[in-house]
């Protein structure tokens, strides 16, 4: 198992390397760069030269990549071209904000998804299932920019209960941020919960139809004990990977929602830095998002491995 984890970490590092290469090459071959964007119409002659020199864009691309990679390994992502400050300082509060948003969505969304999924499965084709499943399909199919806008319209503009957009400096404290995130969290949790609840539902239904559940019933195991001992552990195992992907998606910045609510998280930073041609920031974001995906998936796989006795023995035997 340790060998397996080691192998996966190695593969993850290779993935990160490839991701960095692709983003570097991608931003390099696009027409225009930080200086042309910054200088706009004056982007010619001496001014442009000076700008290139100042930002270090005059040295060859591969050299820039190598020195950048060398610094990243040491934990330094370099300098933001547009913001004129170290990227680590740009990223810090953004990551914190995204984490707050994601954790809130996770804390609300996952338990709700599990409960709703289990309820719909156990009362399959009965009233609770029909109501919840219909709602779930609705919130899944309505695109998030519509549902988010509707939320703003109803809660913020008509009812005036909560602020519609987040107008706070990037580095507010947690408690100042809290009232601002309620609406974004609801918008995200709606979609996330719907997806996951559908997943959990079908997984539970599948296990309920299995021979071993029929056997447990015929053994005289009381209903709820059967559900908790025989059904759920087996039904929720495949859900771990879906949960992991959802968490990675959340941490990676929920771009659309963040833009709609003007939320200062990673997702909005992605949009901003791309439109500013801020190559170092784009690269830093690509690396960070990729490592979030890689590590969360690794954790999910290890968890599945540890919780599933079948896979565990297979691994040991190998």
């Amino acid at each position: 198992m340790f060998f397996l984890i080691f192998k996966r970490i190695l593969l993850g590092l290779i993935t990160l390397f490839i991701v960095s290469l692709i983003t570097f090459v991608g931003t390099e071959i696009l027409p225009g760069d930080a200086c042309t964007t910054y200088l706009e119409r004056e982007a010619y002659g001496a001014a442009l030269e000076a700008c290139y020199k100042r930002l270090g864009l005059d040295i060859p691309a591969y050299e820039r990549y190598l020195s950048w990679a060398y610094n990243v390994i040491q934990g330094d992502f370099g300098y933001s071209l547009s913001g004129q400050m170290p990227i680590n300082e740009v990223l810090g509060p953004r990551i914190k904000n995204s984490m707050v948003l994601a954790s809130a969505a996770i804390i609300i969304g996952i338990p709700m998804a599990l409960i709703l999924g289990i309820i719909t499965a156990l009362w399959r084709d009965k009233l609770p299932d029909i109501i919840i499943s219909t709602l779930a399909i609705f919130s899944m199919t309505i695109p998030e920019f519509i549902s988010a806008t509707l939320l703003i319209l109803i809660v913020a503009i008509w009812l005036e209960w909560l602020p519609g957009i987040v107008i706070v400096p990037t580095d507010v404290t947690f408690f100042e941020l809290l009232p601002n995130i309620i609406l974004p969290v609801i918008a995200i949790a709606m979609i996330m919960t719907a997806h996951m609840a559908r997943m959990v539902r079908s997984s539970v239904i599948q296990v309920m139809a299995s021979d071993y559940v029929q056997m447990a019933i015929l053994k005289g195991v009381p209903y709820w004990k059967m559900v908790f001992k025989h059904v759920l552990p087996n039904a929720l195992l495949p859900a771990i990977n879906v949960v992991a992907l959802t968490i990675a998606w959340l941490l990676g910045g929920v771009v659309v929602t963040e833009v709609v609510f003007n939320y200062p998280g990673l997702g909005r930073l992605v949009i901003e830095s791309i439109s500013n041609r801020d190559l170092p920031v784009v690269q830093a974001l690509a690396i960070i998002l990729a490592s979030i995906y890689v590590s969360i998936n690794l954790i999910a796989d290890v968890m599945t491995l540890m919780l599933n006795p079948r896979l565990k023995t297979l691994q040991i035997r190998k």
Partner: protein
Amino acid sequence: MANYIQTVKNLSIGFKSQKGKEISILRNITTNIKKGETVGIVGESGSGKSTLALAMMGYVKHGLYTMSGECLFNSSNLLNMTNRDLEKIRGRKIAMIPQNAGQSLTPNLKIGYQIEEALKLHTNLNKEERESKISDLLNKVRLPSPDIMALRYPHELSGGQQQRVAVAMALAGNPELLLLDEPTTGLDVTTQAHVLELLKDIAKDTGTSMVYVSHDLGAIAQVCDRVIVMYAGEIVLEGPVRKILKEPIHPYTHGLLNSIPKLSLSGLPDSMPGSQPQPGHAGEGCSFYDRCNISVEKCKDSAPKLEYISEIDTSVRCFNHQELKINKKKNSFSNNINKKNIKINEILNLNDVSITYAKQSFLDQIFNKITDSNPTVKDINININKGETIALVGESGSGKSTILKSIAGLLKNKDGSIKFNQDKVLSSDLRNRSSDDLRSIQLIFQNPDESLNPNHTVEQILSQPLKLYFDFKGEELKKNIIQLLKKVRLGEFYMGRYPRQLSGGEKQRVAVARAFAAKPDIILCDEVTSALDVSVQAAVLDLLNNLKEDLGTTYIFVSHDLAVVKAISDRVAVLYQGRLCEIGPSKNVYQFPSHPYTEVLLGAVLDPDPDIKPKLIAEDIVEEKPPENGCCFQGRCPRILGDKCRNEVPPWQIGENGNSIRCHISIKDLKSQQF
């Protein structure tokens, strides 16, 4: 009334079709189970036998409902009890032993926990008492080292061990009635015989009543006192086991018995035409009318009632059962196989073939070689002659399917070569085989449900090989498809059907037709009849045999069913743990089993005759891997000589009858020592 443990009265169970029509799966079942009695419920798939057994526990599957009638246990009707009340009966008074124990044990819970759960629910034992009771139970079902076993997860046990755990779990609550739903289907012959032995002993020791549901008349014959035969959701025959299995007075039972291949009879079994009507499709008259050979005019329009004949203590649902009594016991099947002398004209030669499933290490992958000192299949030397049927037999894990896959090119062999038509070496890699080589070797798979594409019509399925190998188009293609269908005795109108619109037997016929479409020289048959009901199996075997006689095809036939193999094959190769133990003309292998393993296998075969008992010579231990040194069968051999067998690979000996065996004991000694 007092000595009945369960009474089923006028029970009908069914479902509502999408059009709102009521369709019954069980129709008006009335029967009793006496205390201490073992009753067998027999029937082919779809006859409603499992539904009946589940109803006896008050369990009706999702989608089905009770239309009428009751299942009385201690004079209370299980079918209208609340779940709370049923929980007190299930597992405590009535326990179930499921068909597929591997899937019926919860995968995330340890064996010990699952048994303890039953004990907790149904007994008042405290923690220590429960622990010792778990050991007792596991001991009782003859599982080795019960304390270690209790800590294992279900998937860590073999099929036979899982089935024993299921038995132990059912016994935990000391039930008065045990329901067994195909408890030995899917187990190896030796394991099956041992589990049946165990069940019989338990019935004797505890006085528990048992209801034994099975399609296998051989198993029924071994354990049951009384037999109920079901057909299309009705009881058609019910009586004492000897009466039912030796002098069946219902034409269906009679046909069923004749369609089972037996070790004691030579030739192919008689097949029964037609198939069981689908639920809701039975007509006004007798449901067996279409397939019956003694039917009279009135059978068509009026359904016979179950009639009790007191002299033989048997109930029968047939107007004309008197006619059947005349039938004498036969010594051989009517359609004897015409076993020609096969000319020595080698078509396929397996030379020192070894196959491994071991993963290649990184270095080996670079140098493209396979290293494994103890491969799954080793040293297979078989010459196969044109036009013969050679069977590979053995228990699960004996490597028989592995060898087939290697011949087909689906698995690379590690060592050795496979030669086709005497001199042409077949590449072990499918991609390097020529289209003509691929055409000349075709496969028929075990399960037609999985081997036929559900989204293709029969026409599309059959046109693929015809287009691929012969480039047929338009009218010519259609003509060939019709011809193929005719060959497998299916009408032209099957062309537009999808696999789901066919019965099991029809599907397998389509699979056979697909294999023959390529005009192959060799057809590899991988357990082609084991997913089929016996009456259908007989028809498919008959079909394969006729096609062989017409077209001179060579079959390599893999099966775990020794009686089927005897019926169809010219030569038999017995495999154990991927090593060849014995090979020879099937007549001789069956008549004089000389290798100890062949003897063990044949001894465990169940005959549908309660008076022929299986001989259990060796334990049914499961070995995970073939032994590194010595004879492959050393772990279970009842005649093991000691170190010689453990260290030296036995030499081949050729007996006077033409069968070769691989054993340290001389053929003469083996024969004189036969159990």
